[in-house]
């Protein structure tokens, strides 16, 4: 059983890093390898990192509105590069309306505030397994 590899980062100038760091350390405690890329990420950078690092899941921490602009672009670039890597979003600013919009566009999971860590771990584990099944 190989460890699940997950990228964790933030789009644009979203400066709120505490949540991403806390989740990263919880995922690591759950036995995953977290490729922590931190702030100032663009869809282009994430796609090139996903290729080099061969992660199973992409996790974006969202504590500013920028994800609404960047996420569709990320999904488009992933498809353009034949990448099926699932994208999950997590954070305080994601509204219910935006959640269904994002899921509609192809995001694999959205974790709003107060989501239990066990649920996040279970969902990411299932997504990583699904990716392996698809291949």
């Amino acid at each position, binding site marked *: 059983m190989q*460890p699940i590899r997950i990228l964790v980062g933030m789009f644009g100038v979203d400066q709120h890093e505490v949540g991403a760091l806390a989740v990263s350390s919880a995922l690591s405690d759950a036995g995953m*390898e*977290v490729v922590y*890329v*931190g702030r100032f990420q663009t869809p282009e950078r994430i796609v090139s990192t996903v290729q*080099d690092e061969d992660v199973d899941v992409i996790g974006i921490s969202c504590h500013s509105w920028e994800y609404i602009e960047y996420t569709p672009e990320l999904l488009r670039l992933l498809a353009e590069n034949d990448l099926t890597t699932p994208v999950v979003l997590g954070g305080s600013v994601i509204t219910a309306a935006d959640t269904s919009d994002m899921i509609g566009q192809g995001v694999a999971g959205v974790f709003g505030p107060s989501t239990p860590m066990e649920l996040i771990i279970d969902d990411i584990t299932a997504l990583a397994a699904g990716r392996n099944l698809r291949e």
Partner: protein
Amino acid sequence: MTTDWLQEALFEPGGKAAVPPRRLWGRILSIAEADAAALPRLLEWAQERVRCALLIGVTGAPGAGKSTLIGKLARQMDSSGHRVGVLAIDPSSDRTGGAVLGDRLRMEAGGGDDIFFRSMATRGGRGGLARATVICAQVLAGFGLDRIIIETTGTGQTDTAIAAVSDPVLLVTEPGQGDEIQAMKAGVMERADVIVVNKADLPSTDHFCAALDLAMSARASEVPQILRTTSTSGEGIAELAGWIARRPVGPRSGFTSLSPEAATDYLTELFRVRLRDGFDRTSDDAGSDPFDIVALTTRIDAVIDSRVIGRLTDLDLLEKEVT
């Protein structure tokens, strides 16, 4: 399934070893990391592909600035026409198997980003390297990269495995790390080819370098070069790259020109990785013998002096006893 995919990625229909598209490199490294059954095919491919690549080992205490230095050095080499890859190793938790791999944070974005960068967790590897570091470096060389920078976990004293697989070995330190220097003396300090005094903008740099110089000159063995850098500003990076470029290619550089001594080190590492994979496999792998070192040896035999192989055959017994 993996092997079919790998066969298609690495070999042309006629069986000739080919360079796969860049977007597949990461996936292929994952296979090298995880799938012991794929190793013979990868080695067969690498044997045909690999010409000569410099494996640059970077070690030093945590916080000395290894990652930032590597970011700058990789960019410098990239801009002077080299094809650069980085393997950055961080420790896996021995409790959970998980890891936070944060070395990318220090690689600045920008430019064409031709630099290949892979974060690796040690996954049980010893001596500051990941279990699959050697294999992955060889695979990267097979992709045509000619400068492969390996960043160890940075535990200092025990990071000596890097000296067996890379040349040159850079030990990154900073002014004020006197105590750590003492601690490292018997370990990687004596295997370093160059000591990089990073954060050289600190006022205590002159004093530190003088002390280092004195400590080094008292040694009987080869005295390493001491160079100063300030990674954050890029000061001294060009000089470091120049030193690496001018340095005569040593016995540990490249894969086709190994001296018997270097080959022993290299093969030891290779055998160790293979053996560890074997130990970890469970009995559900019926049909393949995880301890089939002979098959592996046969493949490497063509490039390495067979006398070295002869000396290494006892290793598997040794490993069995140790493990």
